[in-house]
Structure formats: structure tokens, C-alpha cells
């Protein structure tokens, strides 16, 4: 890459707009903030010099259609830039910054962020900041195999008790499922159905312990191909019955229990995300491609009148 080193991007003799022939080194693989009063030249440095050059290099690597413009693109007014990689700029195109448009603004920023993550093939939830990941059957298999040998495990699917519980359970019986899981205990579906009182109670009780359908139970066996095939099949069944979601309940040697949620849908924090795809890449049409932005906008939008008190206080901590 650069002759001198590849730890830095070296900008030599930048003169765009008001820049006074300045040299600036920017560390690679670091987070750098460029600041200054408005009109100081920070945008001339970052956008009209650094990004402009990155864009030129990027166009060079693109199709013939894009390359035909290359000769015409204004070269940034700079002696040279070394160590630059293809650049992606996310411009703050929104100028509507009054409170009324906060929602739109944030949504657009997240749209850009989502675009950004689509580019690198990784999506982060703006709610928790954690990576959004679709679990594959293999992910769950690997997770199980990483548990200590002989760990007791139950593969479960959450039952939506608000929907005609009795009927659902009868269908499960007919399909060949026999067991439920409630309050860390197994129980027979037939037994459960025979207790009218319990069925009614479970159907009514919201926010109580969830009722699960037991898909499979096993003790972890490493290096056992039969076991591997068995749990793969079971996980597939679980994802099917659970509409893309399943729960692994484990009990370790000390008797400690744990519930872990897996899903093969692209979602996190209750939000569905658009999976990275070419459709998401058009910078010219950031909204068109994304059908989830509205949902996200609602989540991150700030309605002054709905904000809870301590949320309001947090603004003040920063005021």
C-alpha cells in the first residue's frame, strides 16, 4: 500500500477550499474524530479531500460504466494521499434537526447505519448494540456440543397460550408430541388436558412461566455421530414448530438451570432486520429498499410526551 507504512493514511499538502496546504496523518484501524468550528475546513479535509480520493479509488475498481466518469471527476487539491482504502461515506444529509423531525432524523441515521452494516455483512441492533444474527441449525448444534459431557438438556418450543390452548395441544398430540414443560417440570399433554382447571389457568395467566412443548431431551454426548444426527433433526423440528424459534433448557452438574433462546429469523431486541443484500446498497435510495425502517423509527423515535421520566433525566445528564 503506502511506501512509508501501512499504519496510517498520509495526507500531504491538502489545499481544498480554505485548507492551508496541511499535512495530516490518520491512524488506520482506529476511530478518529475530526472537529472544529463550522467553516473551519474540517469537511474540506474529510469529505473534499479524504473521501473524494477514496471515491476515486473506489470508482477505479468498479465497472466500465462507472470508470468513464473517472477522468472527469475533480481530483482533490492535494499533493498525495497514501494508504487509503476504498471509502464509504455516510453523509448527514438530513438538515431537519428541530425536535419535530427528530424521529425522521434518527430513522434516517439508522437507515444509513443499517446500510453501512449491510456493506460489511454484519447488522447491529440499534437498541442494544448487539450483533443481529440468524441462528442456523449448526449454530445450535455447536452450542450444544460445547456443553460439558452428560449435561442434561431439553429442546423446547414456546406455546402461545392465548390461542385456543386446548385445540393446539390436541393437534400436537396427533402429530406425535407427548410432553410439555412447565415450571422446570415435564408433564404429559394428556395429563395436562385432563385437568380442566390447569388448562384454564395456564391459558389465562399472562406473564407467568411460559408453557413449552418438549421436542427432545438428551444428555450431551460428544464425538457421537448418532447423537449429532439426532439433535440436528430435533433442532430442525423445533425451528419448524416454533416458527423459527426454539429454547434450550440445560441443567448442569450442580443443578443450575438455564434457558437460551435461538431463532433462525433475522431479529434481535424484538426487532426484525433486513438481511444484508444488494437491494440495500443503493445510496441513492436509502428508503426504498428498507421495509423495516418504519418499525425502527418507532422504536428510536422520541415522542416528548411519551418519554418516561428517567429517560428525560438522562438528557439532562448530558446537558
Amino acid at each position, binding site marked *: 500500500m503506502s511506501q512509508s507504512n501501512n499504519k496510517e*493514511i498520509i495526507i500531504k499538502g491538502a489545499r481544498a*477550499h*480554505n*485548507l492551508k496546504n496541511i499535512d495530516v496523518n*490518520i*491512524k488506520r*484501524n*482506529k476511530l*478518529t*474524530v*475530526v*472537529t*472544529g*468550528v*463550522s*467553516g*473551519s475546513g*474540517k469537511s474540506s*479535509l*474529510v*469529505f473534499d479531500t*479524504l*473521501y473524494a480520493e477514496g471515491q476515486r479509488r473506489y*470508482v477505479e475498481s*468498479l465497472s466500465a460504466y462507472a470508470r468513464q466518469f473517472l477522468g*472527469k471527476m*475533480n481530483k482533490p487539491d492535494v499533493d498525495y494521499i497514501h494508504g487509503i482504502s*476504498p471509502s*464509504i*461515506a*455516510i*453523509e448527514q444529509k*438530513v*438538515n*431537519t*434537526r*428541530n*425536535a419535530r*423531525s*427528530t424521529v425522521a432524523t*434518527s430513522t434516517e*441515521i439508522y437507515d*444509513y447505519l443499517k446500510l453501512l452494516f449491510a456493506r460489511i455483512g454484519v447488522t447491529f441492533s*440499534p437498541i442494544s*448494540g448487539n*450483533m443481529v444474527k440468524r441462528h442456523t441449525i449448526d449454530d445450535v448444534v455447536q452450542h450444544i456440543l460445547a456443553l460439558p459431557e452428560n449435561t442434561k438438556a431439553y429442546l423446547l418450543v414456546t406455546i402461545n397460550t392465548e390461542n385456543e390452548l386446548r385445540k393446539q395441544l390436541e393437534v400436537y398430540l396427533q402429530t406425535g408430541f407427548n410432553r410439555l414443560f412447565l415450571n422446570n417440570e415435564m408433564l404429559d399433554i394428556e395429563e395436562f388436558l385432563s385437568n380442566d382447571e390447569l388448562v384454564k389457568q395456564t391459558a389465562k395467566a399472562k406473564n407467568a412461566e411460559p408453557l413449552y412443548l418438549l421436542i427432545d431431551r438428551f444428555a450431551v454426548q460428544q464425538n457421537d455421530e448418532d447423537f449429532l444426527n439426532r439433535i440436528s433433526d430435533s433442532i430442525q423440528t423445533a425451528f419448524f414448530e416454533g416458527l423459527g424459534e426454539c429454547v434450550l433448557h440445560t441443567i448442569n452438574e450442580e443443578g443450575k438451570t438455564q434457558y437460551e433462546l435461538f431463532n433462525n429469523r433475522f431479529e434481535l431486541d424484538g426487532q426484525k432486520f433486513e438481511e444484508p443484500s444488494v437491494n440495500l446498497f*443503493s*445510496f*441513492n435510495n436509502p428508503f426504498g429498499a428498507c421495509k423495516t425502517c418504519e418499525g425502527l423509527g418507532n422504536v428510536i423515535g*422520541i415522542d*416528548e*410526551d411519551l418519554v*418516561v421520566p428517567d*429517560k*428525560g*433525566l*438522562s438528557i*439532562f*445528564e*448530558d446537558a
Partner: protein
Amino acid sequence: MVGSLYILDEPSIGLHPRDTENLIRVLQKLRDIGNTVVVVEHDEEIMQTADEIIDIGPLAGIHGGEKVSQGNIDFIKNDTNSLTGMFLSGVKKIEVPTKRRKWKDYIEIKGARQHNLKGFDVKFPLRAFTVVTGVSGSGKTTLIKKILYPAIQKHLGNYTGEKTGAHESIGGDIKTITQIEMVDQNPIGKSSRSNPITYIKAYDAIRDLYSQLAISKARGFKPQHFSFNVEGGRCETCQGEGEVTIEMQFMADIHLPCDECKGARFKEEVLDAKHNGKSISDLLSMSVDEALEFFHDETTIANKIKPLSDVGLGYIKLGQSSNTLSGGEAQRVKLASFLGKRSSSEHVLFIFDEPTTGLHFNDINKLLTSFNALIEQGHTIIVIEHNMDVAKCADYIVDLGPQAGDEGGNLVFAGLPEDLVNSKESYTAKYLKDKLK
């Protein structure tokens, strides 16, 4: 695209502080998986977490353009060359005014009870600087945007189409107000054709001047020949844009200079018309400060341009497309257009909703200076703001709350900043105290 350079332009703008934290985590992750991340920002929290800060300045335009400082936050804070660092460390700060304006006239809203407002009476001084504070959800926006603004609009006979929020009455010296303006950070014009000089209405005089030149008379050029918005003198290839835009997939649009006029925006015969050696195209490329010097003898034009310099925009180009202005710059162009009017019979009530959003500390100072200039001209300023540097400069604070929602909506305090800090109920008091030491 790991190993890429990611460039973000003020990503924190419009974000709730809680979301800023998430943004930071996301930026850090982007870096940790092997990318270079460069962010243009004023947000202190983001600066805190940066590996390195580069401060460009020290000031704007010809007084800027240099690398003032580079290092981590502790280094910047101790670098006396860095204006940013000096504000961050508190060595430099926005000064508390030595005295507060005395006021006599006021508007009074009685029985404000829209949404969560609990039916209180509140006064707003006229020809003074009022800041409305309170936690988010305390009812600030409801009071100002749902009651005060539409009620005065109605009083002025303007149709807003919006129902005025619930209140008993509005009174006081409301008759002295001739106009009400909500000034936001929205762009001054949607098209790339609008620019500062047309917005402040100084362009007409300039076109007249150019059409009066001998060469213009000989060639039959009228004022409209010097406009890039209508056919005649402008370059028709780019229709006066000076550039052509090519939309690109995967990346930002590419702007190419127009083949025909090479970016000059006008036909060659029009560019022949020169005033003191400068064509209309040269003029549009001048900064405000350069133009002030250039029009030294044309006082009418100079007086129209000067407010742009007064609000701290001396560095922007006269013909700069308005969509390249930041929100804060657009806001100041709007202020300049009012400052330029200087009509003694007008009394404009200005409302600003969080005008400091996205502004550098030093630019907040300029904004406050513009507020003062408007008040000196006999106008009234009411600002909804969380920023305590603005609140501490107020002549009068209206503090709502104490909490949000149902536990808010009360008038917690109204009066001088110095008296607000004694309020036990007010959250604002807690934060304002530090600023008034």
C-alpha cells in the same frame, strides 16, 4: 468490506443521548473488526471515546484551514492552541452575561392545559431573551408550539390550519407583536439553486448593478441575464447548476463540473461583463467577507450582505448551494435575513427549538450574539433548550416539570437564572448551578 475507510458526518445529530451510546458501540465495533473510522463530530461523548481527535481551525474561512491539534482527548484538553480543547477543559467557556435585561411588556398565557399541562399561568417577557427548560416530556414543546405559537398566529390573523392547544386566554402586550417566526435548522431552500445571497435578497441589487455596466447595455443584458434560475444568460447545458450529478449505486452521487461552462454557470458572453474585474460567476465564488470588501463603495449591497458576516458566516460563498450548508449554518442565514431588515416598526417574536443542536461551542457563542443583536433591534427571542450554556444567558427562564408526562406539566419556576438555582424541585436548577458559579 472489512479493511475499509468509513467516513461519517455528524452521526450523533438528532440522537437521544441514550442512542448516542449505542452509536458509539457500533462505531467501535466497526473499528474492532478491522476498519478505519473517521467521524466529523462536535459531540463530547464521541470525542471521549475516540482514539484520536484532529482539531481543524482555529476559526472559520481564511482564519481556519490548519491542523490545530491532534491527539487523544486528554492531550486536546491540555493543548492551549485548540479551541475545542479549551472549551472541553472549561478553560474557555461561554460567558455569563454581567446583567440581565429589564423588561416591562409581556405576553401572558392563562390556564395552559393542553396534554399534560396542569392549567398554570405563565408570562413571557417581550424584547428580551427567554429560555424554556425542563426534562423531555415536561411539556415545553406543548406550551410553546401548541399554545403560544398558534395563539399568536391567530391573533395576527394568520391561518395555521392547526387548532390552538387548550388554554383559557392569552393577553398582555400581544398587540405590539407584528410577526412571529419559528426558526429551525431546516435547509433554506430545497433545491440546489437556492443560496445565501438570494435568501437574504441581496442578489437583486447585484443583478441590477451588472445590467447597468456599459457592456451589458451594449449587448442588451437585462438583470435576468445574470440569474442562473431563468433562461437567458445562464449556461443551458447545466441549466446554471455549474455541474452535472451522476447517481451512483453503492456510493454517494458524483458531481462533475459542466463540460460547457466549466462550472461558471453562465454563458461566455455574460461572463465578459465585469465589475471591477469580476464576472458574475467570480462574484458568486466569493466569500461573504471578500464580497464585503469588494462592494466597499456599493453601500446598498454591502449593507445587505453584512448580516451574514455578523452572524459568523463570513466564510461561506455567496453562491454556495444551500444544500451544502449545515443545519446550524442554515439557521444563521435565516437569522441574517432578519437582521438585515432593521425595521424599527417591526416587532418579531422568534421561537427556536433547540437551536444549539450540532453546534460547536464557539458557534453557540455566535448564535447568542445574533440573539442579542435581534433583541437590540427590538425583537423577542424565546428558545426551547436543554443546553445550560444557553439557559444561563437568559433574561428569564420558564422551567416546566418537574418530571415528564403526568408528573410534569407544572410551572416549576419563572424568573431569573440566579433565582432558579434555589429551586429544590427543578432538575434544571441542579445543572444550571454549575454554570453560574
